[in-house]
C-alpha cells in the first residue's frame, strides 16, 4: 500500500470507485472510459456520474449495446497504446463477451510471443441486488480460474474499491474488476491521496486462532459478522479476503490454516463449480496434514437467481449459515 498521509474519510464504495477513475483520468492522458450509459447518464449504478462533463466526450463516452465491441475494442485500443477502462453494465454480460475476455484480452500477449501488453480494465457489476433476475444477478468469478493471462479483482470495501481500481488501471495486464452491486452504497474509510492497493495480495480483516474463513466480495462482511457472533461463544475466527481470483495469494491462506487447522470458504455464487471448490483443492493438496477436519463450502444454492425479490435472500449465505458451518466443522475436530 502506498500514498496517503492524511486521515481517511468515509466514502461509499461507489464514490471510492468514482474517485479512482477521476484521479487516473487526471494522471494519465491515455486512460479513457467507455461503456453502455457511462456518459452523461453516469452509469446504471452511478459510478461515472459527472465524468463526461469533467473530462469531455472523447475520454468518457457511451457505446452502442455491443458487448463484443466494448471488450474487444478495449483490447484493440490497449494494443494501440491507450489504457481503456471499459464497463460491462452487468457482469453477466461477460458471458456475451467471453471470446474477447478469454481468447483476446487474456491470451493476446501469450499467443503473440509475449511482446505486447493489454493494459485494459473491464469493470463489471456482479451479484444479487433487488429483483434483477437470472441474467443480471450472477456472481461468476469462478469462470476465470483458468484465465492465466487475466487478473481478476473483487474489492470488498470502499478503500479496496479505490486502491484496487487504481492498481488495475496502472497494471500492464488485463484486469476483470468485479464490483458487487450490493456494496455500492456501503460506506467506509478511504485514505486520501494516491492510494494504490496491489492486486493479488490477500487482506486479513480479522485475526483468529480457531478457524480460517476465506470469503470474497460481499461475503467478507457477512463472514466478519459471523466472526463477531462466534467470538461471543469463545471461537476466534480468522477472516481472509483474497481480494480476487487471479493472482491468488494462496500463501496467506495456507499460513492461516497452519495455525487454525480449519477452513470455511464463503462466496455468493452457486456452490457447484464455484470459487470454493478450486481453492479447497489447492489447500488440500498442499496442507492435508494441517487440516483437522474437511473444509466446508458455504455458498449460493445450485439454482438460478429468480426475479422475485422475496426469494433472493434464500439463495445466498447469511452470517448464520457461516456460524453454523464453523460450529459443525469444529465439532468434527478429531480428539
Amino acid at each position, binding site marked *: 500500500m502506498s500514498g496517503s498521509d492524511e486521515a481517511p474519510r468515509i466514502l461509499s464504495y461507489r464514490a471510492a470507485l468514482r474517485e479512482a477513475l477521476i484521479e487516473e483520468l487526471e494522471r494519465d492522458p491515455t486512460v479513457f472510459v467507455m461503456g453502455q450509459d457511462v456518459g452523461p447518464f453516469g452509469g446504471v449504478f452511478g459510478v461515472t456520474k459527472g465524468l463526461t462533463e469533467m473530462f469531455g466526450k*472523447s475520454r468518457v463516452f457511451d457505446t452502442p449495446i*455491443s458487448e463484443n465491441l466494448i*471488450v*474487444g475494442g478495449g483490447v484493440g485500443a490497449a494494443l494501440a497504446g491507450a489504457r481503456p477502462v471499459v464497463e460491462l453494465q452487468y457482469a453477466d454480460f461477460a458471458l456475451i463477451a467471453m471470446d474477447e475476455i478469454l481468447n*483476446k484480452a487474456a491470451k493476446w*500477449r501469450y499467443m*503473440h510471443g509475449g511482446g*505486447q501488453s493489454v493494459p485494459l480494465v473491464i469493470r463489471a457489476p456482479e451479484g444479487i441486488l433487488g429483483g434483477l433476475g437470472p441474467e443480471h444477478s450472477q456472481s461468476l468469478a469462478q469462470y476465470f480460474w483458468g484465465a492465466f493471462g487475466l487478473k481478476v479483482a473483487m474489492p470488498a470495501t470502499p478503500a479496496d474499491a479505490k486502491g484496487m481500481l487504481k492498481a488495475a488501471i496502472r497494471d*500492464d495486464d488485463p484486469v476483470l474488476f468485479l464490483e458487487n452491486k450490493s456494496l455500492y452504497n456501503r460506506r467506509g474509510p478511504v485514505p486520501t491521496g494516491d492510494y494504490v492497493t496491489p492486486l493479488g495480495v490477500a487482506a486479513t480483516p480479522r485475526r483468529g486462532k480457531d478457524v480460517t474463513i476465506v470469503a470474497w466480495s460481499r461475503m467478507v462482511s457477512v463472514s466478519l459478522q459471523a466472526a463477531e457472533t462466534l467470538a461471543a461463544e469463545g471461537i476466534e475466527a480468522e477472516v481472509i479476503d483474497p481480494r480476487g481470483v487471479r493472482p491468488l495469494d494462496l500463501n496467506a491462506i495456507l499460513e492461516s490454516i497452519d495455525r487454525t487447522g480449519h477452513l470455511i470458504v464463503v462466496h455468493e455464487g452457486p456452490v457447484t463449480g464455484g470459487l470454493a471448490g478450486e481453492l479447497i483443492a489447492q489447500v488440500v493438496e498442499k496442507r492435508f496434514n494441517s487440516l483437522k477436519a474437511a473444509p466446508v463450502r458455504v455458498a449460493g444454492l445450485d439454482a438460478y437467481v429468480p426475479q422475485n425479490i422475496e426469494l433472493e435472500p434464500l439463495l445466498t449465505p447469511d452470517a448464520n449459515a457461516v456460524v453454523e458451518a464453523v460450529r459443525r466443522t469444529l465439532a468434527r475436530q478429531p480428539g
Partner: protein
Amino acid sequence: MPMTEDQLLKAYRIMERSILVEQAILRFIEDGSSRVLLHSGRGQEAIGTGACAALRDDDMLFYSHRGVTQLLAKGVDLEALLGDFLGRVGGATGGLGAGIVHAVDASKGLMGSSGTLGGGFVMSAGAALGAQRLGDDRVTLHIFGEGSANRGTFHESANAAALWKLPMIWLCENNGYSVSVPHREATSVEDVADRAKAYGMPSKIIDGQDVEAVHDAVAEAVERARGGGGPTLIEAKTLRIRGHYEGDPQTYRSKDEIAQARLKDPQKLVAERLISRGRTEADLADLRAAELALVEAAAARALVSPKPGAERLYEGLLAPRSAA
C-alpha cells in the same frame, strides 16, 4: 495515386517471397522438419501486397490466418516468420507458433491476428479507436476473409466504426469459400461490400488479383481515414488456389475451378505490368533468384534455432513487471 515502378518491383518481390516461404513450409511438412498447419494464401498475394504498399510503417495491421503475404508486405522479419512456422525459439512467438502466425512487431505496426475467425473486427476497431483517442494519425487496416463477415462482431464493429468515424480500412478477401462452404450458401448477399450501405460507410469492390487496383483503393481509403473521414469497406474478389489448409481434400470444388484460379495468378499480372514498363524477363529472373537466396538463407538460420521445452509454456502469460 498509382503505384510507382519501384513499388511494383517491390510488389513482385514480396509476392515471390511469399510464394517461396509457402513452398519452404510445404517442404518442411514433407520432410518432417516441423508439424505445421498452413493456411495457404496462394492466389491471394496481390491483396496484402497492394494494401500494405499504401500504409506507413506505424499504421497498424491486423492480418488474416491466410496472411503470409500480408505479414511480409508489412515488413515482418523473414527468419522470425519461418521460425514461427517451424515452432522454433527464434520464431516470432518464441516457439509457441506453428501455423496460424501470431507475429507482432510494434515498429512495423504488426498488431497480430485473431485465432477465432471474425474475432479481429472488434480488435481492429479498438486499435483505430485507440489511435483516435490518443490523438495520433495512425490508421488501422484489417484484412479478413468473407466468411468471417458473417460473425456478429462484424455488425458491432461496423456500426461503431461508422458512428465514431474510426480511422480504419476493412479489406475483405472474398475467395468464394467459407472453409468448404461456397459463398452463396453462407451469405445472403453476393457482395459483402453491399453491407457497408447499412452503416453509412463507403465501400468499393475491386479485382483482388490486380495489385494496383488493391493499392489504389486502399490508398484512397487511407487518405479518407487519416483525414477524419472514417472507415471504408473494400471487397477484393479473389481466388484461393490451394485448400483451406494443407491436407484439405477440396472435395467441394472441381479441378477445373482450381485450374482456372491458377490462370489468374496475381504475380503473373505484376510481371506483365513490369514488362510493359520496359523491364525484361531477365530482370524478373534476377529478382526471383535474389528472393530465393534470401528465403533459403533465412530458412537455414531458422532451422538452426532450437525447439522450445516445457519451460516455454509458462513464459509470457503475464506482463514482465507484474509476473509473479
